[in-house]
């Protein structure tokens, strides 16, 4: 069992061999915003966001032993008739890499800030912008949340059908394609209290902080939204609010059990206005019955004066559902092997962690 840990100062591979340990380090000193490993473990992609020189993509075909730079997703020249587009035609960050599916070999998706979705059919060697979503008129309604421009942070490909995909946009809602990106429909049901009353139900300005899909029940998706927790039971067309999470339903991260769509985990923060753990105590909220009941667990997590923020991609569950990993923007990484009841600190000395992901 391995874990990829993307941080502000490099990519770390944490491996379990008896105990967990850092097995390898890559791109030390460079911000690594996203990584993807294909199911065989051989092909790796790592997205870098160099402060001076822009977004770069590196690929390894030998499990991370050697890396080569490959073409990064990029926009073509901005046409004159797009001069009123409120968002730049420059890739600022790769925020999500996802999509390897046994029935679509070679296909990978990259979600970016400022909102472009890019597709590769050769495992990341070359990329093309998904034109239908980029030219969808309501894309211009999207706006940045935390960043200057909107971004696609979640790409949920259905295990049942590689052409059925849900993407999450901050702030631009939840969009679904059922034809591999040829056409897109925005999902309804989310609500945004940060908007004027007449816009709160507008599906194209919602801020789902993160969306995840249950691998074993692909019609079920969960979202940690800016205004609470939502769930879809129809593959990501309609969302409904799930209430009752304690001590808060504000946060960024969410994970769903790969085999049980009723089990989901969230990392609560005090509020939109105070993005720190409630009472400065790190906890994880979990439901085992689809959101009808909740419990809060924190054994092994910092219980006082702890100001960790677990960002969108800072919580992950292993493919067998046994392990949870959670990491913070202040460089702590914790593991749990009992469904999140008890946690063990792996390190408090990592760089700021952007994303964690299990590798089979």
């Amino acid at each position: 069992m391995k874990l990829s840990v993307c941080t502000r100062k490099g990519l770390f591979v944490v491996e379990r061999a008896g105990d967990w340990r850092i097995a390898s380090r890559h791109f030390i000193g460079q911000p690594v915003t996203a990584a993807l490993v294909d199911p065989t473990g051989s092909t790796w992609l790592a997205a870098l966001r160099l402060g001076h020189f822009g977004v770069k993509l590196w690929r390894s075909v030998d499990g991370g032993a050697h890396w080569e730079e490959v073409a990064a997703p990029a926009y073509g020249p901005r046409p004159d008739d797009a001069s009123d587009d409120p968002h730049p035609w420059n890739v600022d960050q790769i925020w999500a890499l996802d999509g390897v599916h046994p029935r679509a070999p070679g296909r990978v998706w990259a979600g970016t800030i400022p909102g472009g979705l890019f597709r590769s059919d050769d495992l990341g060697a070359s990329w093309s912008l998904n034109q239908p979503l980029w030219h969808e008129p309501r894309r211009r309604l999207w706006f940045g949340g935390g960043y200057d421009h909107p971004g696609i942070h979640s790409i949920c490909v259905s295990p049942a059908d590689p052409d059925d995909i849900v993407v999450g946009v901050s702030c631009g809602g939840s969009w679904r394609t059922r034809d591999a990106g040829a056409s897109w429909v925005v999902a309804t049901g989310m609500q945004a209290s940060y908007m004027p009353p007449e816009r709160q139900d507008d599906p194209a300005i919602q801020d789902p902080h993160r969306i995840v899909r249950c691998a074993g029940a692909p019609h079920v998706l969960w979202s940690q939204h800016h205004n609470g927790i939502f769930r879809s039971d129809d593959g990501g067309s309609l969302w409904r609010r799930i209430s009752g999470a304690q001590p808060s339903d504000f946060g960024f991260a969410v994970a769903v059990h790969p085999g049980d769509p009723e089990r989901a985990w969230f990392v609560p923060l005090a509020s939109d206005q105070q993005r720190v753990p409630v009472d400065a105590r790190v906890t994880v909220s979990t439901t085992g019955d689809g959101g009808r009941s909740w419990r809060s667990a924190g054994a092994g997590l910092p219980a006082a004066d702890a100001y960790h923020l677990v960002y969108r991609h800072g919580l992950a569950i292993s493919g067998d559902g046994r392990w949870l990993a959670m990491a913070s923007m202040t460089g702590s990484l914790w593991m749990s092997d009992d469904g999140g009841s008890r946690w063990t600190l792996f390190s408090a000395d990592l760089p700021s962690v952007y994303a964690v992901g299990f590798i089979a």
Partner: protein
Amino acid sequence: MVRLEFAPAIQRLSERVPRAPLDVDAGTLGAALDAVFAAAPSLRGYLLDDQGGVRKHVAVFVNGTLMLDRRNLQRRVAAGDRIFVAQALSGG
């Protein structure tokens, strides 16, 4: 000829970036850079953004003056001009 020089932080981006000042025959800043990109293709994406402008944190000097209009690669250069490309100071 126009003289092009790259700071060490730029040289390390590709082994094909000239280590010593390079004289090229070019009438514009863009043409001068293109002469280097022809030999070091990967350098283009490091210095220029998706729309072909100079990246925000890359600094281009012409005769010691910082180029402020990052999109103006059509800027004329004349024989004897010196172009210096560096990494801007930023970040943490």
